[in-house]
């Protein structure tokens, strides 16, 4: 087993200060580990992988890992990722975002990235809250949950990320959790290798800003909650009473070319036409 941790150590930047900036029990480090393992499993070279992160806790992941890393502005990770992918389609571009990044301020970019199917993997670390700014509700905060900006309980509904990105046209949509790590590894590897735009939502608890205010006694309690309430989509669909249960797994698999590929094909067709005419 030692190879798991040692492998990750090989992918960390040795000139960065550790431990990670995240709070004790934050799942972000687990997602980072999962990301590294899936990239490693796919045999991708460090030089060919670009991590484009947004702002917030999730945005800090990029600095620790020895890929090409870009820490962008809040919500705009997908736009920069789109530019990189169009400029150099050979690169594996992974946009790492939080729920605020991806679904609130960057919601427009998300649906358009899905619609145009740019060949970028969106890894969304959903912790149901704005963590870095100190615990304000986000567009994934469940109805009824508490935060500093909904001290009486959230009145708004949360986004259904799967249905949102499915409707927008994404090539792949999946959800995993930081408790179900092996599955998360597999989901991520699948998403990175499928052409077009692929979204992986990773449920990762934020005890400091979300758990404490919503009845969890510790970070461990939140992991136990993930363990007990999440089950594979196949089993979820067979349930009669789905109250409090959450499906994980792959929800959408579409066979489409990434925009960068369609662009390249169009250029080729143009060149052929030109060559043929001459």
């Amino acid at each position, binding site marked *: 087993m030692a190879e798991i941790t040692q492998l990750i150590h090989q992918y960390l930047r040795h000139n960065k200060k550790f431990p990670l900036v995240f709070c004790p029990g934050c799942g972000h480090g687990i997602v980072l580990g999962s990301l590294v393992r899936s990239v490693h499993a796919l045999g991708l070279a460090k030089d060919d992988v670009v991590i484009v992160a947004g702002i917030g806790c999730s945005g800090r992941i990029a*600095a620790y890992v020895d890929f*090409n890393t870009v820490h962008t502005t809040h919500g705009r990770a997908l736009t920069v990722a*789109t*530019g990189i992918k*169009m400029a150099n389609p050979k690169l594996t571009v992974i946009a790492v975002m939080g729920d605020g990044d991806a679904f609130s301020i960057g919601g*427009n*970019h998300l649906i358009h990235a899905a619609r145009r199917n740019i060949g970028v993997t969106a890894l969304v670390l959903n912790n149901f809250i704005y963590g870095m700014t100190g615990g304000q509700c986000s567009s994934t905060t469940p109805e009824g949950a508490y935060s500093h900006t909904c001290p009486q309980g959230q009145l708004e509904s949360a986004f259904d990320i799967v249905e949102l990105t499915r409707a927008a046209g994404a090539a792949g949509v999946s959800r995993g959790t930081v408790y179900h790590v092996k599955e998360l590894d597999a989901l991520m590897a699948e998403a990175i290798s499928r052409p077009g735009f692929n979204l992986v939502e990773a449920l990762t608890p934020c005890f400091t800003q979300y758990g404490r205010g919503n009845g969890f006694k510790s970070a461990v309690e939140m992991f136990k909650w993930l363990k007990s309430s999440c089950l594979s989509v196949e089993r979820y669909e067979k349930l009669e009473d789905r109250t409090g249960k959450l499906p994980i797994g792959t929800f959408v698999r579409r066979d489409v070319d990434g925009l960068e590929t369609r662009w390249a094909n169009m250029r080729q067709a143009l060149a052929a036409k030109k060559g043929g005419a001459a």
Partner: protein
Amino acid sequence: MTAPRKKRREAFLLGNEAVVEGALAAGCTFYAGYPITPSTEIMECMAKRLPHVPDGAFIQMEDEIASMGAVIGASLAGRKAMTATSGPGFSLMQEQIGYAAMTETPLVLVNVMRGGASTGLPTSPGQGDVQQARWGAHGDHPIIVLSATDVPECVEMTVAAFNFAEKYRSPVILLLDEITAHTREKIELPEPGDFEVFSRLTPTMPPEWYKPYEETMRGVPPMPPIGSGYRFHVTGLSHDPLGFPTSRPEEVRSLTERQFRKIDRFFEDIQIVEHVDTADAEVVVIAYGCVARSARLAVKQAREAGVRAGLLVLKTLYPFPRRHVEPMLRNCRLAVVPELNMGQLSREVKRVNEGYTTVRTINRIDGQIITPSQILKEIA
């Protein structure tokens, strides 16, 4: 000029179309944008041309914020990239302009100024974005702002914009106005070799020794394209020479100071102005963009009427070319600054004036160009 030369290809183009000619001549291979009047022809023309340019890529994004994001991404991946916009779109881009300045990402942004605040006058000229171009993004940051007065200059100044962006690793804003952008004039189409074209320097040391934001002789660190073996961190946070976030006062200070110094140091190279009859002038008109054209005629007419008038056309607006403006203010009894706003560049002129002379402004904000006769009235 007398030597016979090959007949060059000519075209009767809009200023906006000439920008595209300049961009392609400068080696631009990436465009991302969002349509907005009166800059849209730049985007449409790029959409037609880039599929035929080697490695060309074009993408219409969902908004101006996304356009700037894509341009930044493409530039990080090694492309010469640009976008164009106008008024409201320019406001949306400000956050990303600041990011590009902080991360020292070369790019060219053409802002075709239209009239009024907010939606204002979409099809009329204005020059109300001058101060925003300089200070629109929050926080202290250096930036280069250029302008052009006519269609041939749209080609030249776009090439200059790319060259400065690449040389100094900086976002460069080219401010046009609706009139310059929508005037058709003849240009001779640029051909390879017409212009000296600069490309950013890439590191020449082994990757392990590369420090992306290190102090160098030029103050401009080399910049490898993403994916070329130099793995480093890019962030909008204040960062140390390795590119990692830092809040240590001495590191933050030295980063910001270097960013300013790299532009200040090459001040002479960056400031582009044109002197028209200024040698013996006692009255000087200081103008830019389409208004400079009216000023040309006004100065000519003033000369014919016996007034020793001169014209200083500013093509670099920032860093403000004070070394050209200051001697004018010292030697002339009157300086006239006509512009299509309530007084934006004139603030800079007044700032460097320091009591030398009288500065008179002509301001027009009704969506119409300042006419030569309006200027003539002030100088004759």
